[in-house]
């Protein structure tokens, strides 16, 4: 084993180490120390990935890629994990919460680096099972229902994915993605099954049923995991498959139909919600839909658009759920009224996160929407573009409905509630990313361009 390969596996190994440390310390140490034990290796993983972002490739194993795309995905997973650990409290997730978040982050990193069917499957399961385990921790009826919905649908998705891998293997004699460009009906059936498996985790429309329940019924860190780690990693895996295998028709058509349905249905359903978490759940279906539309249309901007969109979604969803964790169950529309007076930092953070999700300047969400529309327009995919524009308009309506409520003056006098320093740090860091990269997006766009070279 040479020097380079040690550094290429280090981020994934550190995420695993974070999980082990947090699990071992959970029964014997107070919760803040458990969180710290998970956070330190995760932070080290972030630093190592950043340090060798443009370094030479040194693949550790045939199962994992070590290109800039994989490193960018690992960076997103590790930093999102870091943000989520900050607001993982023992009263909602049990003491093993940080360990499970770290495992999910490792799964996200594996999924983003997967260039082989085995790592694709393991990465998907490695993000799903911690989400199920975290979701059922409170053992309330809604939490267990959300966990079972995810578990059953993810099981169906995993079965479809395995079936796809089997057909891919039958067609090409290999489980590596780059061997699957052989074409032919067997490979096409394999890709169709693979698409179903990914669509379940991606929450595209016929398979989205778990998403709103999970966001609303399970503890706040689970929603953040589903949005900021699982969805982003699946988007990168789908992008890698789309880039490796030359545009088979069934792949594009399936993504186009499921994506368009997700945009329409997700946005229409989100419009009717009065609970912040449920609204974020339905809107996450819509965001998956935009990504699927871009992936289906293709074109020279496809890769950059997917990466920038995913990178803009992750900090917004982390900030949103950090605030939701703070508010506990009081996340209905009327509870948010005057939030900026009772929790100034939380109010501003949630406001900016919603602004970014709606795609307004000067947030990162605006840059992402700009890429989305120019990518669709560049390929003259007018149908997809119209659907995306209508969806974004609907999105603007419901995000603003919540955002305005935050800044409306409260009806009764409020006392300020102090915010824990860790929560505050997570919110400030996410919001700073959203605004800084929104004003000056060159580092991110440069990284995305490098990842696709």
């Amino acid at each position: 084993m040479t020097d380079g390969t040690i550094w290429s596996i280090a981020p994934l190994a550190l995420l695993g180490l974070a999980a082990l440390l947090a699990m071992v310390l959970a029964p014997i140490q107070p919760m803040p120390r458990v969180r710290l034990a998970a956070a330190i290796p995760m932070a080290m993983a972030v630093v190592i990935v950043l340090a060798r972002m443009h370094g030479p490739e040194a693949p550790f194993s045939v199962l994992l890629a070590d290109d800039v795309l994989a490193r960018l995905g690992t960076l997103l997973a590790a930093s999102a994990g870091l943000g989520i650990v900050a607001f993982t409290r023992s009263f909602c997730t049990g003491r093993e919460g940080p360990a499970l978040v770290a495992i999910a982050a490792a799964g996200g990193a594996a999924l983003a680096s997967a260039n082989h069917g085995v790592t694709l499957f393991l990465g998907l399961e490695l993000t799903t099972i911690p989400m199920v385990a975290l979701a059922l921790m409170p053992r309330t009826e809604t939490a267990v229902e959300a966990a079972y919905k995810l578990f059953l649908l993810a099981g169906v998705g995993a079965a479809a994915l395995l079936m796809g891998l089997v057909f891919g293997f039958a067609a090409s004699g290999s489980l590596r993605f780059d061997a699957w460009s052989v074409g032919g009906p067997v490979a096409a059936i394999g890709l169709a099954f693979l698409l179903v498996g990914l669509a379940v985790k991606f929450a595209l429309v016929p398979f989205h049923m778990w998403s709103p329940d999970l966001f609303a019924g399970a503890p706040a860190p689970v929603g953040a995991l589903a949005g900021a780690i699982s969805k982003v990693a699946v988007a990168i895996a789908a992008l890698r498959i789309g880039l490796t295998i030359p545009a088979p028709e069934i792949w594009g058509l399936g993504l186009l139909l499921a994506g368009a349905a997700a945009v329409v249905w997700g946005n229409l359903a989100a419009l009717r919600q009065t609970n912040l978490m449920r609204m974020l759940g339905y809107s996450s279906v819509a965001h998956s839909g935009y990504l699927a539309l871009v992936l289906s249309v293709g074109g020279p901007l496809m890769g950059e658009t997917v990466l920038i969109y995913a990178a803009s979604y992750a900090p917004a969803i982390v900030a949103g759920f950090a605030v939701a964790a703070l508010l506990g169950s009081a996340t209905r529309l009327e509870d948010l009224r005057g939030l900026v007076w009772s929790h100034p930092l939380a109010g501003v953070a949630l406001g900016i996160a919603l602004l970014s999700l709606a795609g307004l300047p000067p947030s990162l969400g605006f840059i992402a929407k700009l890429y989305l529309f120019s990518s669709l327009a560049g390929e003259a995919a007018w149908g997809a573009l119209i659907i995306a524009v209508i969806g974004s308009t609907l999105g603007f309506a419901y995000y603003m409905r919540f955002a305005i409520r935050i800044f409306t003056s409260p009806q009764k006098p409020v006392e300020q509630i102090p915010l824990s320093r860790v929560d505050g740090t997570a919110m400030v860091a996410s919001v700073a990313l959203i605004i800084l990269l929104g004003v000056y997006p060159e580092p991110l766009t440069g990284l995305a361009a490098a990842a696709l070279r």
Partner: protein
Amino acid sequence: MSWGFAIWAATLALAAAVLSVTRASAVHALLLLLASLLALGAAFFAMSANFAGVIQLLIYAGAVVAVFVFVVMTVDASETAMAHERKLLRSAWRWPALFVGLSVIPILFGIGGGAMDAGAPAAADTRELGLLLFGDWGVATELVALMLIAGMIGVRHLGRSLGPRLRERGRE
């Protein structure tokens, strides 16, 4: 062994699997699943994939026994219910036994014919297996280990009883 036998055993496995998912009783379905897994094991042996065949028999057939434990744990165990179940399940073994019996018929009577071109079974000694699992596929092994940890934590929490301790625990 031969391709004819492999295809015969695989067909039986498929038929048993179809019957398994269409049964209303959990025990019937499980027994048919067991028959399907055994027939699949026979198909592996027929294709000279001895190692895969042994794994199929040991792990999958073994896992069905574990699932049986869960079924036994969750069903009503009162006297009348037991008598009712016994009456319902008296003939439960017939179909699964038929499938397993059918899948060994070619061996007994030498039907199937046609030598297979796969030649001698590939050597699968523990050393090579270990090198594979902790060499090239080491990452996958470690990821599976992490996955099992997550599953274990989840199951442990699902299995705990909701006593007063939970409510006392409160905020950290």
